[in-house]
């Protein structure tokens, strides 16, 4: 059975964050209605960083993936009739997900207090980059900007060069997931004899809440965490190395692992060098350490090195690009990828929900065509 069957969700989340918030509802069987502009101007249908000449507004990757399992209603909410229909949809919904800017929110009469008055059982999720209130409330955002103002960008990259953000819109994904968790918690409260409520998510706060040491290090010790290159701060070697046939990741976090790692690659003698006595001295001489081990590593093959390390309980792993993850045997063993058939895009691979659930597995369904469910949805309201 599906866990969320019977729930109705209105997805007015025009961007990745909103779409991500509504997506797990669809995966677990809720009826999610994506309310879209009839002119296909929904950002997920636009090219974005993915541009293949053959692609259209129906086949762009963000739409195919993030709107999977949703129904599509093409609705012009700039006219009164459209707004009236939206209001009727919301009246019978359990959850509203919106990422509106302040003017649109006001125009749709969806300011949280007012919407809550009209729909006391509604869970109303607002996801905005910097919050509904606050000095940055009117700021324009982009994923890199949220990474910058969330403290993530400063600590990524080389100390000699500019900070790096990931090229994928991770802050938006994070905000969407927080929205889903908030909505599920609010549903539980409502269905325990409570009422609906407003769930407010600010992307900047989501990023600021997922730091391991950045904030505590400043608060506890007044020290700034800086970019330190392609490695992790606690010890060395925690990094990515080239080997004969590709790349491997190594995460040697303590001395026991360090000794076993050097033994395994046949370089135990390195520990006699005072720079390489332990993982902490190594972390002060990372370039020299990497230069010392690289010639040896370049003679080894990734499978042998990774499995050899794991046999010795040294955390090592493979390094995949986005084609390689599609072929990775571990993902296939767990059935992570699903081939989904789409009338225009054809068959394509969907990443699954990353949790195997014994009683309520998620269902993989395709993304809707623009307005595909107009008639059905209007019929249900009649």
């Amino acid at each position, binding site marked *: 059975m599906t866990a969320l069957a019977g729930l109705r969700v209105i997805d007015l989340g025009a961007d990745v964050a909103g779409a991500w918030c509504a997506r797990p509802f669809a995966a677990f069987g809720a009826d999610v209605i994506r309310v879209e502009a009839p002119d296909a101007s929904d950002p997920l249908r636009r090219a974005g960083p993915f*541009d293949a000449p053959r692609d259209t507004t129906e086949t762009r*990757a963000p739409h195919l*993936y993030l709107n999977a399992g949703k129904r599509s209603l093409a609705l012009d909410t700039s006219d009164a009739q459209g707004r009236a229909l939206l209001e009727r949809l919301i009246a019978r919904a359990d959850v509203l997900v919106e990422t509106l800017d302040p003017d649109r929110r006001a125009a749709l009469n969806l300011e949280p207090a007012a919407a809550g008055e009209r729909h006391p059982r509604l869970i109303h999720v607002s996801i905005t980059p910097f919050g509904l209130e606050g000095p*940055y409330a009117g*700021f*324009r955002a982009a994923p*890199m*900007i949220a990474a*910058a*103002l*969330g*403290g*993530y960008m*400063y600590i990524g*990259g080389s100390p000699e060069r*500019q*900070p*790096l*953000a*990931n*090229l994928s819109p*991770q802050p938006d*994904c994070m905000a969407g*997931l927080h*929205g889903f*968790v908030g909505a599920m*918690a*609010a549903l539980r409260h409502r269905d325990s004899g409570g009422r609906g*409520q407003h769930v407010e998510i*600010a992307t900047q*706060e989501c990023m*600021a809440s*997922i*730091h391991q*040491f*950045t*904030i*505590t*290090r*400043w608060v*506890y*010790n007044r020290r700034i965490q800086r*970019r330190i290159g392609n*490695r*992790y701060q606690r010890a060395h070697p925690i990094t990515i190395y080239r080997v004969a046939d590709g790349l491997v990741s190594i995460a040697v976090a303590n001395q026991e692992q360090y000794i076993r790692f050097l033994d395994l690659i046949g370089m135990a003698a390195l520990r006699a060098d005072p720079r390489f006595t332990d993982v902490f001295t190594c972390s002060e001489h990372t370039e020299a350490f990497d230069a010392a081990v690289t010639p040896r590593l370049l003679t080894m093959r990734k499978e042998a090195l990774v499995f050899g390390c794991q046999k010795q309980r040294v*955390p090592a*792993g493979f*390094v995949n*690009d*986005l084609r390689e*993850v*599609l072929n990775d045997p*571990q993902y296939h*063993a767990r059935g992570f990828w699903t081939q989904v058939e789409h009338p225009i*895009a054809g068959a394509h691979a*969907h990443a699954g929900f*990353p*949790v195997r659930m*014994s*009683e309520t597995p998620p269902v993989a369904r395709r993304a809707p065509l623009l307005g595909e469910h107009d008639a059905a949805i209007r019929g249900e309201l009649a």
Partner: protein
Amino acid sequence: MTGALAGVRVLDLTRVWAGPHATRILADLGADVIHVTSRKLAGELSVAPATAKILGVYPDDEPGERHWNRNSQTNDLLRGKRDITLEFDTPEGLALMRRLVAHVDVVIENYSPRVMPKYGLGFAGLRAINPRVILCSMPGYGAEGPLSGFISYGTNVDPASGLASLMGYRGELPYIGGNAYPDPVAALFAASAILVALRHQRATGRGQYLDLSQCEATTALLGEFSLAASRGTPVPTRDGNRLPDRAPNDAYPCRGEDRWIAISIESDAQWRALSGVANHPEWATDTRFATTAARLANIDALDAMMRGWTSGEDTYALMRRLQEAGIAAGAVLDGRDLVEDANLNARGFFREIDAPEVGPKLYAGQPIRLSATPPRLDRPAPTLGQHNQEVLRDLLGLTTAEIDDLKTRGLIGDRPAPAK
């Protein structure tokens, strides 16, 4: 108990970051989270002195006599939870654990996949005790498959998941992030799956087994990229922060040491606005830069020009001027900037929490803001074993004599087990 998840009880066997972060969310939202610490591992939790210094985990670098209660990670991640000590590799500890399982809705653990079944605490074992119980396991690669036995950290998941392939400088290796980001990703998916399973549990009275792969969790957040790759659509290649559909899009240096501003221009209108802010109206009409296509074609010259302009500016002041002109721009905040950030502070994001052995400190708040059942952030992290008595007495009905006996025999306590 107040909060949206009042009445939900979680037995938390997790360590490090991903698991404790998942249960911190549940605790903030009102669940009763009972964190279980092995006293044998409590010593190990207090990291080596050199690491502690690097990471700055003790207040003023001073571990103190009871360092296990002063660790920043413990105090950050265990807030709002109760803590008991239990040794489930002893027969009596295991018996207590089994009794506790009968009283909880959720068990969550992040051991390697061998550990729980070894003690009869795999899902079948737990379900035999409590048919309503939800077990969430969150190993690096999931409980089954050729890599299921792998030990891994977030810094291994980052490259394995595909995430690192989308970060780095032109022509160089994939880059791991500065923050073990796959850990909180796994945390959010664990919390999500648990809440879905709780809804099913309430409807049917049945629990279930949630087998989370940390690696899959991060890959799931790249789903549009892997989907594009599966259809042969090109995905962006690593070149700093440059993207194929907008320019400029990067971090540019500002006045001062290691100060930067991130600027993302999505349209030609925004570019014209930027040229106004920069006091370089000629940039708007220069054919090398007038359109997105032209700016992408001349990106090296564009970025050099941008750097020349921004390097004399103050990052915050420039952010405000650009934002006033409708341009997505943000100061690149470090840890101190975050704690002092105007927006986060105006919104009351940081909370001062007074843990008895640390003193009052600011901590990141809970970004899930619920209007009717706001998150609770007023309860400091427990000290080691602080709730032994309370939990064993109130939940399991042990007598004071029985509890004292467990204490005397070292089966529970408020200090790490002495090293053998």
